[in-house]
């Protein structure tokens, strides 16, 4: 009897030791991220909430200001609502056009039988252009004075818009830039389209389905999760849209960049303002850290809302892995 209990006791303590060792091992492997998560995410996020209730300009010590920053941003800050309206425009127009165009180009590339590799590479290349460089390129191509696009448009007898210099045309110009860099969606849609079971097309064809009917009743249902994924990630990316509108506005307005340069964001006439630009404007141009944190939290809430939606919708994105 006693030897048996001793053995099981030893086995149990051995098990506990093993579990402890495994826990330590897990912590050791996870440690870079555990530190990164705490120091570069959790702690600054908590401070962002804290500063959103403080008046702080970076020089005088922060003082409690209650909800003043919040009312300032929502009621008096002249850039907040224009930025939100622009974001809504971009979500409605840019995201949907990008998804439609990405699907179209993806379909086209699956139909191309000769020189597929070359076409695919050419279609993909613009996506690789660094955002600042691509925006500079489009600022040149679309500049109303000497830009090649307007030269061609005028030669053909079409109206030549002001693009990045016209508040009505700056967002369409950004949309054009976004459509140029369609490579990411093209690859995703291409993979999805090739996964659609061939038998379903054959069956539809036997039933006498037209090309449109085959697309509508075979292709679309099969790839709808990917379309959803493209829409939601598109919305999340739009919330974070920063470099292109900022650089386009700065280049078109002719502001010279340098140390401590001041520029009015959103040129022309607030039409290229996006939410992340407000954080920069409030924090690093107006030195109103408290209000900048309010906008940061709005950005956080919006991003998280759509990310949660993404994780719920697409179970495939985060499988437990057992």
């Amino acid at each position: 009897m006693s030897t048996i209990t001793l053995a099981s006791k030893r086995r149990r303590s051995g098990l506990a030791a093993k579990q402890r060792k495994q826990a330590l091992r897990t912590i050791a492997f996870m440690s870079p991220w555990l530190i990164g998560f705490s120091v570069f995410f959790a702690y600054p996020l908590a401070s962002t909430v804290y500063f959103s209730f403080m008046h702080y300009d970076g020089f005088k010590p922060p003082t409690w200001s209650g909800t003043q920053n919040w009312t300032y941003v929502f009621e008096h800050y002249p850039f907040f609502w224009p930025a939100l309206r622009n974001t809504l425009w971009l979500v409605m127009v840019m995201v949907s056009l990008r998804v439609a165009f990405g699907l179209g180009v993806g379909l086209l590339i699956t139909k191309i039988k000769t020189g597929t590799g070359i076409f695919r590479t050419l279609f993909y290349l613009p996506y690789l252009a660094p955002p600042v460089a691509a925006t500079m390129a489009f600022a040149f191509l679309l500049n109303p004075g000497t830009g090649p696009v307007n030269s061609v448009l005028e030669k053909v007898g079409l109206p030549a818009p002001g693009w990045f210099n016209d508040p009505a045309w700056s967002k369409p110009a950004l949309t054009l830039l976004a459509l140029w860099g369609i490579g990411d969606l093209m690859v995703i849609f291409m993979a999805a389209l090739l996964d659609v079971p061939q038998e379903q097309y054959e069956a539809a064809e036997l039933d006498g389905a037209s090309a449109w009917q085959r697309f509508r009743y075979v292709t679309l249902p099969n790839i709808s999760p990917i379309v959803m994924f493209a829409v939601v990630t598109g919305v999340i990316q739009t919330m974070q849209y920063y470099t292109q509108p900022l650089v386009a506005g700065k280049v078109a307005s002719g502001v010279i960049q340098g140390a401590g340069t001041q520029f009015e964001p959103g040129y022309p006439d607030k039409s290229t303002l996006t939410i992340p630009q407000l954080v920069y404007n409030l924090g690093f141009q107006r030195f109103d850290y408290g209000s900048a944190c309010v906008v940061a939290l709005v950005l956080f809430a919006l991003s998280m809302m759509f990310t949660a939606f993404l994780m719920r919708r697409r179970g495939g994105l985060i499988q437990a892995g057992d």
Partner: protein
Amino acid sequence: MTQVLDTPVELRAPVSPADRTARRRALLEWVAVHALGVAAALFFVLPFVFVFLTSLMSDSQALSRDLTPNTWEWGNYQKVFDTPGFLTWWRNTLLYAGLGTVLTVVSSLPVAYALAKFRFRGRNLSLMLVISMMMLPPQVVIIPMYLFWAKQLGLSGTLWPLIIPMAFGDAFSIFLLRQFLMTVPNEYLDAAKVDGCGELRTLLKVVLPMAKPGIAAVALFQFFYAWNDYFGPQIYASENPGAWTLSYGLESFKGAHHTDWNLTMAATVLVMAPVILVFFFAQKAFVEGVTLTGVKG
């Protein structure tokens, strides 16, 4: 439709009228599809062409509406290299991209391995937090981060506030590597353990060689991220042109050279070219990464 074209002609039965219409339709479709393909290719390629052509124009011609250069001014590229600061921006970009990439891979791999292969409480929660961080714009926590790096550590005017965090795991890289490591069969790991390897040795001797394509994809994405980053250098390095990167400095060309689109476009070409060259050498790893995560690329 196009399958008709793929079957060898000589194997087909004598051509019936129905077959002939089918073949004609297939041919028509081939022509339509490839015409559309060429049109799309022009849309994607012409911007590059016009940028390149303008970069070779003389100063006076760059102010005109001409589409092609009269004289090919290759010296424009020399002028860009001679611009004060340009070589420094190259060096800074390579430091940020190179060191950042190495740090990211080294710090993210063990985390991804743990998330893919260890069983522990809080694993799914950790994974969800990783994905949330991945989707989060850097602007959300930038105010406290800036105060931390600039006011407390006095590191503004350098790129260190952007490089150091990469030693602590990058959410996107962790996620991509984890997705990749999920595809490594457990049998290999078990076999290594039977041979007496600890987890670290298993990771280094067994998993690392198998994960090379995933690591290549992560390294590429991280390199491109650093190369393209505009917001980071804008926040931390703007006050010191000696710490600017190419992506950040590029914009100043338009200012410094006023309306000289030719030099601005030459600089633009020089910022685009390395990325595109790297892509051609590593195309496979790249596409693999995009399809693996379906997130960004």
